[in-house]
């Protein structure tokens, strides 16, 4: 893991992320919303990996921090300004505090007891946000901005339509579209904000991985007892990791709300936490690139597979003779469209059974087989970075 050169990795990663709209366009994923999601959930997964990948503490409560981040940000949009900076700052602070509180309590236990405690916290947050806390969260509908909101820092809005989120005047939903080799390319401001933050977040995570702090966290995972008898107080280490990953989640929540100013309670459900876990494990827990990769794969499934209907299938197999076309459509039909979660479930099983180290292990195996002479980061980055 320490073999390849971090600088090369960082540069390749940055290039891949920044050219995302071009690279992903042929896969039908080159539109702003999905690109933003890739980046945002990439941040979330990178953060979660600091906790789970390094210390091995399996938290089912990170969706709660995502939600806290989103709610804080939308409140900033409502009260202060549509500039995303104050919202992001508040989101990181709030989710950090929330993580500190929850971590302080839950980290008194380890193993599955810790998992269930975090799950309990997340479910409580979700239930309350959906019902009793409606004055703060707007319950089922989700917290949204309105024309009548105060926004004391912004000039008065006379246009009659809702203002857009912006970064010092650059509006998040501004997109520059162009056609290149028959592909529709969309370069979106919001995506680039997310992308830059993702790169920064990734850099921070590399630094943490490579630091003595990161070393201690890895030691927690392999033998917590030895660490205690070596004079290390493990609790502040795990708590710090928990809070850092909670802050990453809060930041991701803030970005979700910045790209689309709505915060829904479903964001806090345990199944959302579960899907964060799945992203990290799918990509490869404890690796640097893996979580980003896993986040991309899952979001791609959710966005693209769920939208393939029979018409699209018929389009694909149009070149086949009639009965074969029908046959192919019949075969594939259960796995796409409304069956997308079936495919996702099957993919998890296959990955876990055959590639316990996640996609990164797969990449490494391919790497070993084909390119022994070309060692290093270039190979690890072969798989699309997002």
């Amino acid at each position, binding site marked *: 893991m320490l073999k390849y050169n971090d600088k090369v990795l960082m540069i390749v990663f940055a290039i891949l992320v920044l050219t995302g709209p071009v690279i992903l366009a042929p896969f039908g994923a080159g539109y702003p919303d999905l690109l933003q999601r890739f980046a945002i959930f990439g941040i979330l997964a990178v953060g979660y990996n600091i906790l789970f990948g390094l210390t091995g503490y399996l938290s089912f409560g990170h969706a709660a921090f995502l939600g806290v981040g989103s709610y804080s940000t939308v409140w900033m949009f409502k009260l202060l300004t549509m500039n995303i900076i104050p919202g992001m700052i508040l989101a990181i602070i709030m989710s950090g505090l929330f993580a500190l509180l929850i971590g302080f309590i839950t980290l008194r*236990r380890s193993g599955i*007891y810790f998992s269930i405690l975090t*799950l309990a916290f997340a*479910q*409580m947050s979700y239930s309350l946000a959906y019902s*009793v806390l409606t004055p703060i969260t707007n319950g089922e509908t989700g917290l949204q901005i309105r024309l009548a909101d105060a926004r004391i820092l912004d000039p008065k809005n006379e246009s009659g339509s809702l203002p857009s989120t912006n970064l010092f005047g650059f509006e998040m939903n501004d997109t520059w579209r162009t056609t290149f080799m028959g592909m529709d390319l969309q370069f979106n401001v919001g995506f680039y904000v997310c992308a830059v933050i993702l790169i920064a977040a990734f850099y921070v995570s590399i630094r943490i991985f490579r630091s003595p702090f990161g070393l201690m966290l890895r030691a927690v995972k392999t033998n917590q007892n030895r660490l205690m008898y070596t004079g290390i107080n493990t609790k502040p280490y795990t708590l710090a990791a928990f809070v850092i990953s909670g802050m990453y989640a809060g930041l991701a929540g803030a970005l979700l709300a910045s790209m689309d100013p709505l915060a829904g309670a479903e964001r806090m459900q345990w199944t959302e936490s579960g899907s964060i876990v799945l992203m990290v494990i799918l990509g490869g827990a404890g690796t640097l690139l893996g979580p980003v990769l896993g986040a991309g794969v899952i979001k791609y499934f959710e966005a693209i597979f769920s939208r393939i209907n029979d018409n699209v299938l018929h389009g694909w197999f149009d070149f086949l003779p009639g009965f074969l076309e029908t046959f192919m459509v019949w075969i594939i039909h259960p796995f796409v469209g409304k069956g997308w979660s079936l495919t996702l*479930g*099957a993919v998890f099983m296959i990955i*876990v059974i055959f590639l316990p180290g996640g996609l990164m292990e797969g990449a490494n195996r391919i790497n070993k087989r084909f390119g022994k002479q070309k060692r290093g980061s270039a190979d690890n980055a072969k798989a699309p970075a997002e």
Partner: protein
Amino acid sequence: MDAIFLQVLNGLDKGSAYALIALGLTLIFGTLGVVNFAHGALFMLGAFCAVIMRKILTLSHVSLDPEKTNFLGKPLEIRTPYVELWWGDVGTWMIDYSVLIAILFAIPVMGVMGIVMERGLIKHFYHRPHADQILMTFGLAIVLQEIIKAFFGANPIPQSAPDSMSGAMDIGVLFGFAEYAVIYPYWRLVYFVFAAVVIGGVFAFLRFTTFGMIVRAGMADRETVGLLGIDIDRRFTIMFGLAAAVTGVAGVMYTPILPPNYHMGMDFLVLCFVVVVVGGMGSLPGAILAGFMLGMLESFSSMNEVKAIIPGIDQIIIYLVAMIVLLVRPRGLMGKAGMMED
């Protein structure tokens, strides 16, 4: 007073469902050391055994009634189940009792299902980290529920209890309450008794049979028993089948209370994990105790008097209790040291 007595009954009833599901889960964990996120799916599959049984029993001969028309103005189809056609009243009786017949159907089906699952998938995960087990069984749960959805749709499918066991009885009179003060549905009482019998049966099986003794020894120390030359693996496989069957019949019997749908497994999954953890991973009596305790607390927290004091308490009571128990008793109510703390 009668209100409290009613909630006690409700608590017992919910508790028996929780305890039954948790029993299977903790059995699997205790014997095999596997964290099985597909357990909820087993419960759901059990419930759909009842659906399938009813579908089989009501396979119908279709005849046309030329005098009546359907929504398109064509002759109305009259469906007569074959069993009624062939056996008359006996057939009608069979359809009426389809839930109970489904139990006979579910036990072998779910047992085999469990064994196939263990041999085909779980077996390869004994020595893998819990996170891997969780991911794999979670994937399996999704696959199972999506398959059910593809065949039966997303809508709940109602199942009725046999006529003689539906309706409610005035149970309060037996306990000295006024007439009609405490009325409780027959089927829920049946469920409670059924749960008690199954739980008792499993305990007796583990307590008094050689098989059970070996399995208990294996739960305590797997390697030692292996050294004695006892084929513990095969017994554990059967144990998995048993756990699946127990969970399955719990699902079958629950269908008249809760019309089954494809995602009911996920809905119960978190809950029964909480039950098992509160009871202490791998502890059978713990799971039963925690199941009844949480069922009871859930019932009482939904009383208006309680909700008036703490609004929304019924939303979070289960999690709140889980948290308090785990913080006060690190390994749950009756957990063993060292279990699942890595």
